[in-house]
């Protein structure tokens, strides 16, 4: 059984059908790349899976359980984490505090814990900090823990977003154009990082425009165009698919 199963997913905004009857499956332990021209509906798919928009039609199942209608925070709690195409860190918070946000749904101290500073609460706070530092270190950001997110260089902000998403202990990590704006060296480091994340047992769903990245690390690729899946397969299969070439380069006779 697939870890994540998407069936006939449809979403339109006004007259524009952003995602149209999309079917795909995400298998445990793979990196699934999602590509397509601008406006193909890739980010909308992420927003539908993470519960930011409700779909018009269709089904999304995590481990056989429908997640339609759940709130974004419940979906994150069930194990689907994401990053954003336009970085959405908490700009005026430090790198450490940003990662601590990811640990919120895995911890539980509430009002009384805070007011009474119980032993359990203090230990949990310590746990949150240690765990957050662990994820910072994992993304090689440990030297920047006290830097405000907005003052970090762009490449590090991208990494911090991944660290924050990993801190939610996801089973599925959805990365929305993680290589956008990165230089060549940062990109190859990113590819290595994504592979390591996959090797640690987290399934990765990846939107990326940089073909070198997608083709280099994806186990399988699906191609979207105008909200419709036009191809699916291994990187080689997709690269040679005439419909894909057409979507990216236009028809030959035109």
């Amino acid at each position: 059984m697939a870890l994540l199963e998407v069936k006939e997913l449809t979403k339109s905004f006004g007259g524009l059908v952003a995602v149209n009857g999309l079917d795909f499956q995400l298998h445990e332990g793979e990196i699934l790349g999602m590509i397509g021209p601008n406006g193909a509906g890739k980010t909308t798919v992420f927003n539908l899976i993470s519960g930011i928009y409700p779909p018009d039609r269709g089904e999304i199942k995590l481990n056989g359980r429908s997640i339609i209608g759940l709130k974004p925070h419940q979906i994150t709690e069930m194990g689907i984490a994401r990053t954003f195409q336009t970085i959405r860190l908490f700009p005026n918070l430090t790198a450490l505090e940003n990662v601590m946000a990811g640990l919120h749904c895995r911890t539980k101290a509430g009002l009384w814990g805070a007011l009474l500073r119980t032993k359990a609460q203090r230990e949990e706070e310590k746990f949150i900090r240690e765990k957050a530092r662990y994820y910072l270190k994992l993304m090689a950001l440990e030297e920047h823990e006290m830097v405000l997110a907005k003052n970090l260089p762009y490449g590090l902000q991208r990494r911090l977003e991944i660290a924050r998403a990993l801190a939610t202990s996801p089973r599925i990590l959805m990365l929305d154009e993680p290589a956008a704006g990165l230089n060549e060296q940062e990109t190859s480091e990113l590819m290595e990082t994504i592979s390591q994340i996959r090797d640690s047992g987290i399934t990765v769903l990846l939107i990326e425009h940089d073909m070198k990245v997608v083709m280099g690390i994806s186990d399988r690729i699906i191609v979207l165009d105008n909200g419709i899946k036009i191809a699916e397969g291994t990187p080689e299969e997709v690269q040679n698919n005439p419909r894909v070439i057409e979507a990216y380069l236009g028809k030959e006779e035109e």
Partner: protein
Amino acid sequence: MEAWLSYLRNLDKRIWYVLLLLFALAFPWFIQSNYWISVAVVFGIWAILGLSLNIIVGYAGLFQLGHAAFWAVGAYTTAILNTRYGIPILVCMPISAVIAAIFAILISRPILHLRGDYLCIVTIGFGEIVRLFLFNDPFGITGGINGIRGIDRPSFFGITINTPLSYYYYVLFFLLITLVAMQRLENSRLGRAWTYVREDETAAETMGIDTVRVKMLAFAIGAAWAGVAGNIYASRYTVIAPETFSFWNSVVMFCIVVLGGTGSIPGIFVGTIGMVVLPELLRELPLLTQAFLGLLRAPLGALGGFGAVEQKLMMISKSIADNIPMWRMLIFGAAMVAMMIFRPEGLWPHWRYRLELRREEEAAPASVGTAGH
């Protein structure tokens, strides 16, 4: 001003806490005036109200212009339970807090998805509904326009709090509890969740934070604390009436938070001094001028010709004092506008809010994010 403030801020916080506490404890002895002790009690009650609103406006970033309603719910709960059923004031206190929190949850649940100005307008409406309810007294329990009188004084272990001096320490005690609670809330998992929601609600939600629940908790806790302030207020004056809980007083609370420095605990104190104590000081201006002139008389009297100046000064200060109630709103309005233009982050801001408002390129202070304090 800026340099001076940052110098003060960088001094070891603990020294300041101890000095301030000693000052607060010794205040009645060197002031030696029941009038000023009573002003200090008013300051304390308003500071608690300001701190309670700060949870909603400052921490969670929700605009709330109806906070007097929760204060009213607390005060009336205490007054009704005490005068009708003879329940002791201190037993009424937690009940007031819980009832105010329940009201907050009931009204905030359907409106929390609103943002900014819309939420603000709904809270104004709620405040007016509560005030009119108290005024019209539909169930014959609120005493209508006359309010409720004959509320007991708080008493415990045979001690009754009934002098200005004992009230001073009573309020100081609850103010200190509030301060400790705020400090702890701010630096907790819940406090961080409020910060995340304030900074980017969508990002917070996708990071697994139940933003609706977290915002509702801010409303409930802020309201509960205002309910406690209502209990203290009711027993301090033994009489409560609807006009105390007017929209104007919600505005004063809002100004305390915003003028002082949103989200900043010292800012709330500065705001309370500006909004509540300063008008009181101005009203007493002739007295202060007289005292000031008395000090000057010895050295300046020898020069002669001082009497005319003295008379003039007394006249000016008297006319200011007489006109202050009339000009109060205009002065506050002008101060508000000036603040929003020149110092939108408030007089003593929390560093983070200054960043949010000014987008300055600054590193975080070293104390943030390290374990403990």
